[in-house]
């Protein structure tokens, strides 16, 4: 019984990943180019372009009709002799920067790109300020013993002479 169960689990372990599907399967065999170099470039470009129908997928991942049309279009541009950048620009000219999964660095996106660094610096400054203040507060609260306390301490320690600290 146990052995059968184990066999079943083992079989499922092999079959399930196959059923779950590989994201690369969104690219249908009939779309692929016979030239492996061009096909590789087309795949690289497709992974950079957002599918506007299902906005958090690249056109490489998406099964949407428009994603398919754009994948075919990218391949046509490459066959026509476009560089990767030219093929991407061709799509951007029609759909805007929004199709780029990696936002480009330009004046409108300076804030976007700078914000992680700015936030990190601010956070570091805040941490630094926090510890400095704690240190200063600690220093300020360490007051000397009063005359009575010093006398009492001396008495306990058995030293009779006052060392002059107030």
């Amino acid at each position, binding site marked *: 019984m146990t052995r059968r169960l184990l066999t079943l689990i083992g079989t499922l372990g092999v079959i399930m990943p196959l059923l779950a599907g590989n994201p690369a399967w969104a690219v249908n065999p009939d779309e692929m180019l016979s030239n492996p170099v061009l096909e590789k470039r087309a795949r690289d470009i497709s992974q950079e372009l957002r599918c*506007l*129908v299902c*906005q958090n997928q690249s056109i490489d991942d998406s099964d949407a*009709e*428009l994603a398919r*049309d*754009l994948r075919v*279009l990218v391949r046509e541009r490459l066959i026509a002799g476009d560089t990767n950048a030219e093929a991407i620009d061709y799509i*951007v*000219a*029609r*759909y*805007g*920067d*929004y199709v780029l999964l990696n936002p480009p660095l330009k004046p409108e996106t300076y804030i976007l790109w700078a914000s992680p660094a700015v936030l990190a610096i601010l956070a570091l400054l805040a941490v630094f300020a926090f510890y400095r203040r704690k240190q200063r507060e600690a220093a300020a609260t360490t007051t000397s013993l009063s005359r009575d306390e010093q006398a009492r301490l001396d008495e306990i320690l058995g030293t009779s002479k006052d060392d002059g600290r107030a």
Partner: protein
Amino acid sequence: MRFSLAVIPLVLFAALAGVFLMNIDKDSSVVPSVLIDKPAPDFSLPPLPGRDKGLSKADLTKGQVSVLNVFASWCVPCRAEHPLIKRLSREADIPVFGLNYKEKDPQDGVKWLAELGDPYTAVGMDLSGRTGIDFGVYGVPETFIIDGTGQIRYKHVGPVTVDVLENVLLPKIAELKG
């Protein structure tokens, strides 16, 4: 010093809440078109089967404000907005062109218009969807307002509703007509 530090989180929270509040009504699935205030792309589309006039860029540059409505028979929201496209065609008194986007069968668009009525001045058939891509179409229906020189001046993504027709499209058209 202490007080001002304590206020910072409050100010940050208020600023963030403000940003969220400003965007709460915004549909994040609507992507602004890069083609606004740019000339419409060059295109030339064949007519629907049995008709003799297709649609091309020349139709959009005749000195008259026009509307280009992207529709398809397989698109359910297109069916929903169709009566409003008819109303637009009646009330705006300008050419309303149709771009029949990616039909599986060329006859589908013809049948659809025969069933629901044809408000279009002319219809171009875009079986491959290439002209659609040139116009930056990503979800039918889409409706473009184009000025007399062929510049795209406004784009509405998704079905036209009574609210959009009366408060956005018609005023925009009136403004462009001058």
